[in-house]
């Protein structure tokens, strides 16, 4: 019998839990430790943030589902890792702190045979001075409650515009090394779409601000896609859309400070500039959670487990951009020091970025961190589950499963407006996610699998995915037939 502890119940944690439950017999124990009582389908936050979906349509409570499935659920947050145990517990454990009820603030030691760290990112608003949702005229769509608040503010702004006021809207990245450009891209297009619907588009100047070198980089070093049979770059596609929607853009911008309705940013040319706004949605930096790790005697071994995020089987050797290869990216998501610890999704430390690193004339790094979207988060969780099961079954002789982002396809459906009849989305598929210039010297990706499409059908796909993934997350009959 093995005890598997999963930290985090987001896209990768919950995927891992679902497959563990499906694949393992009941004699094995599965424990989930997560501070949020709900599962949330994050991609639909964009629609909450423009008032087209209610938060309750995107979340469901985890406790009843886990109870029904015989999974132990502890509503707590992991704080420290003891992979060797201590003088009381002779096996690895995680120290967690209850976040609710009478036990709030109390700690608990949760021992394990296998640990899956799927804690995703910390939304590091503090890394940018003045960037706190609900202050300085900024909002966020990173969580469902942030997104609800974003819609309240946007609704109030629309009322002001209906009364004849002209406003400035600023959407993009709120840190020089932020990632998740895709979410901001969706939000700016959805906001623009809604302003048209409310017939106030002419009252707003909408501006995109981003740390990307060129539009359409998306933290993936851009991409060349086939659109309608013709080759097009991500940059062409994004610029075409922004031009069409009358959105102006500021690129190569490292945002470092927000004051009431004013963003301060540095450009790659080393200039310091400002931009005013009445409504801003700026994606914060993502960081690790600041976990600590200790050995059996209480010695600090944090550097064995973490480099910000968790260390896995990536090649972390520092080398110049020109020498980066897909082989640097992890395959098994296993920690090299403690073979019973894994980190799928955003929780693993990437070897480096995917986009080319650039610094301003003042030495500030201004370029996107690597994104890990829902699909690779789900797939890496499935790879981790396969590996845990392999280890349970075969121990020392286990042959681990592999799923590198350099040998994995993914789809991204970026909503550009909600509506069954008038909605639209930009659908992109890429293979592989991390470009492989040895295999595909021209563009780094297989052009037959790397395509783009714009139109109403994309919205239908995105909406269908919303319902499908919530169905899957609820572990309803045959949920496993729906791919990650």
């Amino acid at each position, binding site marked *: 019998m093995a005890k598997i502890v999963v930290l985090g119940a987001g896209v990768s944690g919950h995927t891992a839990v679902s497959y563990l439950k499906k694949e393992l017999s009941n004699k094995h124990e599965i424990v989930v430790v997560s501070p949020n009582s709900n599962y949330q389908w994050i991609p639909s936050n964009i629609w909450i943030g423009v008032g087209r979906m209610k938060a309750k349509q995107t979340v469901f409570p985890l406790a009843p589902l886990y109870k029904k499935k015989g999974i132990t659920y502890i509503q707590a947050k992991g704080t420290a890792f003891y992979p060797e145990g201590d003088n009381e517990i002779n096996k690895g454990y995680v120290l967690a702190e209850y976040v609710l009820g009478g036990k709030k603030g109390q700690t608990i030691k949760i021992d394990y045979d296998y640990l899956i760290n799927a804690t995703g990112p910390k939304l590091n608003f503090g890394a940018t001075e003045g960037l706190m949702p609900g202050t300085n005229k900024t909002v966020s769509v990173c969580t469902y409650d942030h997104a609800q608040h974003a819609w309240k503010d946007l609704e109030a702004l629309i009322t002001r515009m209906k009364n004849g006021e002209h406003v400035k809207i600023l959407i993009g990245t709120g840190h020089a090394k932020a990632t998740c450009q895709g979410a901001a891209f969706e939000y700016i297009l959805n906001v623009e779409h809604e302003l048209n619907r409310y017939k106030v588009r002419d009252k707003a100047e909408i501006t995109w601000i981003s740390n990307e070198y060129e539009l359409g980089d998306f933290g993936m070093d851009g991409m060349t896609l086939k659109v*309608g049979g013709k080759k097009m770059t991500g940059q*062409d596609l994004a*610029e*075409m*859309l*922004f*031009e*069409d929607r009358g959105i102006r853009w500021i690129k190569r911008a490292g945002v470092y400070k927000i004051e009431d309705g004013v963003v301060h940013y540095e450009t790659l040319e080393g200039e310091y500039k400002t931009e005013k706004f009445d409504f801003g949605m700026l994606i914060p930096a993502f960081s690790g959670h600041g976990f600590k790790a200790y050995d059996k005697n209480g010695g600090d071994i944090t550097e064995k487990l973490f480099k910000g995020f968790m260390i896995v089987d990536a090649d972390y050797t520092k080398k110049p951009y020109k020498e980066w290869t*897909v*082989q640097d*990216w992890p*395959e098994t998501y296993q920690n090299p020091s403690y073979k019973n610890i894994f980190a799928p999704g955003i929780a693993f430390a990437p070897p480096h970025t995917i986009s080319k690193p650039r610094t301003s004339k003042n030495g500030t790094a201004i370029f996107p961190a690597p994104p890990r979207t829902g*699909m690779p988060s789900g*797939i890496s969780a499935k*790879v981790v589950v396969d590996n845990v099961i392999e280890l349970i079954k075969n121990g020392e002789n286990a042959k681990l499963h*592999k*799923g*590198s982002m*350099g*040998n*994995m*396809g*993914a*789809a991204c459906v970026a909503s550009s407006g909600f509506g069954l*009849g*008038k909605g*639209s989305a930009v*659908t992109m*598929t*890429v*293979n592989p996610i991390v470009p*492989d210039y040895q295999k595909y010297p021209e563009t780094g990706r297989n052009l037959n*699998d790397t*395509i783009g*499409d*714009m*139109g*109403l*059908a*994309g919205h*239908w*796909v995105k909406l*269908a995915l919303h319902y499908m993934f919530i169905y899957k997350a609820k572990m309803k009959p045959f949920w496993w037939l729906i*791919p*990650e």
Partner: protein
Amino acid sequence: MAQKITKTQRFMMKNWIVQFFRFLYLNTKILFVVAKGHGGTRN
């Protein structure tokens, strides 16, 4: 200068019949790209 969305492209992007077939195509394409599987990159 950014490329422009042409009138024909705009018509196609909004036309329900065209988009119904695009919907089928996109779902198939996504399934195909994802279901192609994944693996390692090192020898």
